[in-house]
């Protein structure tokens, strides 16, 4: 009798644990862990570290004034998080393959799908999308160049054409709509 009681209890515990683990994984969703890259800032000649959660993004999109302009505000309105790590180094070899692989391993999780991957001359640029149901729920960009490493993680509704169009403000050619 005693052993009969134990088996369902253990099974219930295992079930509860697996539900909690799955829930935790789901809660992480489109948000990537980028903390391990922070140590690279000490080696970098230029480092950008952006950590904006939903309330901060809403605050930024609600601000008046010259910036953010209408296009940027439009992109910001759909977002729930903006996380960026970008490093420029004076010499090659400042970051390791493991640094990049740690990010790539996260975007192999269910929900993520690769949109594009370009590898040339030892450089890698990959774009991943995270689906929240049928809608876009997140975006990840990994750009690993010889002296530069950039990881962008956007959470929320993202229109890639709109986001790409912001580049036009920097003198970079625009991504044509619908591509």
């Amino acid at each position: 009798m005693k052993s009969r009681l134990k088996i369902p209890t253990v099974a219930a515990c295992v079930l509860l644990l697996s539900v909690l683990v799955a829930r935790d994984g789901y809660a992480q969703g489109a948000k990537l862990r980028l903390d391990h890259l922070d140590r690279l800032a000490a080696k970098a000649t230029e480092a950008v570290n952006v950590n904006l959660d939903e309330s901060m993004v809403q605050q930024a999109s609600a601000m008046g004034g010259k910036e953010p302009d209408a296009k940027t505000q439009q992109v910001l309105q759909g977002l729930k998080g903006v996380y960026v790590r970008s490093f420029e180094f004076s010499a090659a070899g400042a970051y390791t393959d493991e640094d990049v692989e740690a990010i790539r391993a996260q975007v192999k999780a269910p929900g993520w799908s690769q949109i594009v991957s370009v590898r040339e001359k030892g450089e890698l640029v990959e774009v991943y999308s995270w689906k929240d149901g049928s809608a876009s729920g997140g975006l990840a960009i990994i750009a690993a160049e010889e002296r530069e490493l950039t990881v962008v993680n956007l959470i929320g509704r993202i229109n890639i054409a709109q986001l790409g169009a912001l580049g036009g403000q920097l003198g970079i050619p625009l991504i044509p709509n619908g591509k």
Partner: protein
Amino acid sequence: MRLEEELRRALSRERPPDGFAGRVAARIASAGQSAAMPASRRRTASVGWGMAMAATIAIGTVSSVYYNHRRHVADAERVRNDAVTGLRIASAKLNDVHERLLRLSTQNERMR
């Protein structure tokens, strides 16, 4: 010896002139009267102190409110700049990958 005598004479006890004590007492009394502040003047002084304290508190409060406002504005500006920087980097990288794809597809077409 002569110096000693002169010192003794100079330091010897002398009786004060007649009425000296009375004159000193009268002078002390008159000084006390002039130092005492009339009631109206005391009121004016306390009102002045009150106003000074109120002004100090008001200036402190206004400074604190202004400082908090400036801090809030600075935080909001930092958040806005971070958001714009983040999106510009994302946009630049998207355009970079787009250019790479275009270049590679052009190269492939030439090779064919």
